[in-house]
């Protein structure tokens, strides 16, 4: 994740608290989705940014996960996610985001 954005996420977590915070991802492949999920849970795996060694432990979900999808406006979802939903490896993306959400990689 971009180093400035790591800093922004860390600042938000520190200032507003993590209790009501949730991260939603929109990456189109398992590698990038997993990397971002890891960064906001167990810390920056590249050790380059402010979240290196900082396990924020934020709840992270992908927009393709059904429990997230079903809460969103269906027309908007079709417009903004529909194409990616057809082409992406949905199961593999969700597998890796869930892996890190549930504490994997620590």
């Amino acid at each position: 994740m971009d180093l400035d954005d790591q800093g922004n996420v860390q600042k938000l977590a520190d200032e507003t608290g993590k209790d009501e915070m949730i991260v939603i991802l929109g990456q189109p492949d398992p590698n990038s989705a997993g990397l971002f999920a890891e960064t906001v849970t167990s810390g920056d795996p590249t050790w380059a940014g402010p979240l290196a060694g900082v396990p924020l432990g934020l709840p992270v979900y992908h927009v393709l996960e059904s429990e997230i999808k079903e809460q969103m406006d269906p027309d908007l979802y079709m417009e903004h996610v529909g194409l990616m939903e057809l082409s992406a490896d949905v199961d593999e993306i969700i597998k890796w985001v869930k892996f890190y959400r549930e504490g994997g990689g620590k």
Partner: protein
Amino acid sequence: MNLEGKQVVAIGEREGVNGPSLRLLAESANAKVVFSVTQCFV
């Protein structure tokens, strides 16, 4: 995970679903988006 009332950090990607789109979608689920960004993964 119920999104209603949650403070959402939306991390989109240019080749996937971008930040502004995630913001619209999260707001349609009555969440409050506190930060959204579009990354470029290389």
